[in-house]
């Protein structure tokens, strides 16, 4: 009998996982004992960290895309289709275009969805750089923006890449300075809790850097309405901020498929944080942004999780007891201007420290983004 392993989602988690499985199960696939299928609704793999550079004209949305067929091992079958239902009892997926697909082991890496419409006025009044269209539109706005108040508001939590909002304002500060416009542009950053970032050490570091750079900070600011007509952002705490350009990190959600399949009741999948196995169904793994684990929604997390999940699935396929686990390893590079960066690294239960920003780390981040295409292929 052939063990059919189905990976859903052709983003960071799904692509790395499919390639790792091809590598680990090479002989089994060759003999016909195992088969790996990657199902994704987009023929391209999209590397989202590229979007941070688009508003500043340093990268284009096209730079973020590569055809999945160039990145995924030939031993993996690629199926471009959208999963519309998951039946974990019958071990079967419904597909939009192609009927249904049976699986023996399933891994879900569907990522997070942006839902700007959850905040009244945000879709009309705000911009963002969290998706291709948003990043392109913000690029055009930024190019024309020569004076006024730029407000970056962290609205959605949890959101992808907790560092990106901090990076955006620091890059904007440097970018407007470079262009001789900083005197005429006021920059304000807002955050929902009592400090500038969820992670205390990042908050301390960012607050100091913001002060040095004359970036205003509003904490305990939970946006509850955007008034696009008058250019005002209202908060649940009763505060108001006038803006000329609003960059709002949109609310995120998991997937309706998760809720409908009983894998989690709020769209994020409930999993064991070490094994990434579903709390609610057999032979179902969830990795990447969709999994509700106590660390950041970051590509590095999806990547390290994929290693553990590949190992577990491979062991099961061979009839062995899986032992590999994910320890919460998270790495985030943080751009602190246009030419310097720092990074944090931590695991479950450990506190990250922020190092002094430097140029080499900036080049390392850009280098990682370039070599990412090798990482996704499973070569790094």
């Amino acid at each position: 009998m052939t063990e059919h392993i189905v990976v859903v989602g052709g983003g960071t988690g799904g692509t790395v996982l499919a390639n790792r499985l091809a590598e680990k199960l090479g002989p089994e696939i060759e003999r016909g004992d195992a088969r790996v299928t990657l199902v994704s609704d987009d023929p391209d793999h999209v590397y989202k960290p590229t979007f941070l550079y688009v508003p500043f004209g340093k990268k284009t949305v096209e730079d973020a895309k590569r055809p999945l067929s160039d990145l995924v091992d030939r031993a993996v079958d690629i199926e471009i289709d959208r999963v519309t239902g998951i039946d974990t009892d019958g071990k079967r997926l419904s597909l939009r275009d192609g009927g249904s697909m049976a699986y023996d082991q399933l891994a879900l890496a569907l990522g997070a969805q942006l839902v700007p419409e959850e905040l009244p006025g945000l879709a009309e009044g705000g911009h963002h750089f969290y998706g291709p269209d948003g990043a392109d539109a913000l690029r055009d706005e930024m190019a024309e923006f020569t004076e006024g108040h730029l407000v970056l508001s962290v609205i959605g939590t949890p959101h992808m890449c907790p560092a990106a909002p901090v990076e955006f304002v620091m890059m904007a500060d440097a970018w407007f300075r470079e262009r001789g416009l900083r005197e005429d542009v006021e920059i304000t950053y807002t955050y929902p809790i009592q400090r500038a970032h969820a992670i205390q050490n990042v908050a301390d570091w960012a607050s100091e850097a913001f002060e040095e750079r004359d970036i205003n900070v509003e904490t305990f600011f939970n946006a509850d309405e955007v008034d696009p007509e008058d250019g005002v952002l209202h908060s649940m705490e009763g505060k108001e901020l006038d803006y000329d350009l609003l960059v709002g990190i949109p609310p995120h959600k998991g997937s309706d498929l998760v809720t409908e399949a009983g894998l989690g009741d709020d769209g994020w999948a409930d999993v064991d944080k070490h094994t990434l196995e579903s709390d609610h169904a057999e032979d179902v793994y969830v990795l990447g942004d969709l999994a509700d684990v106590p660390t950041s929604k970051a590509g590095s997390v999806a990547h390290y999780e994929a290693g553990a999940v590949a190992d577990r699935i491979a062991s099961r396929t061979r009839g062995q007891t899986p032992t590999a686990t994910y320890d919460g390893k998270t790495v985030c590079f943080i751009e602190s201007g246009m030419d310097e960066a720092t990074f944090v690294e931590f695991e479950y239960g450990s506190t990250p420290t922020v190092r002094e920003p430097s140029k080499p780390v900036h080049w390392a981040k850009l280098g990682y983004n370039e070599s990412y295409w090798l990482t996704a292929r499973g070569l790094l």
Partner: protein
Amino acid sequence: MSETEHEPDVTVDSRGATCPGPLMDLIGKVKESDPGTVIELQTSDDGSKSDVPEWLDEAGHDLLEVVDHDDYWSMYVETN
């Protein structure tokens, strides 16, 4: 286990989540609740005992009571 007189309209179970998870879960619930709603926030994160009251103060909602269970706290909040 301690007793309380407060009958919550909704309960938010944030046990096991670390800061700022419980506070963000509470903020999300407050956002969708009508004034006068009593919310029980269950949290096992020590930080909640300071950051939740601080936010309630800022946003103008009331902390009715904190009940200490052995391995978590129940924070009773009323929205205004």
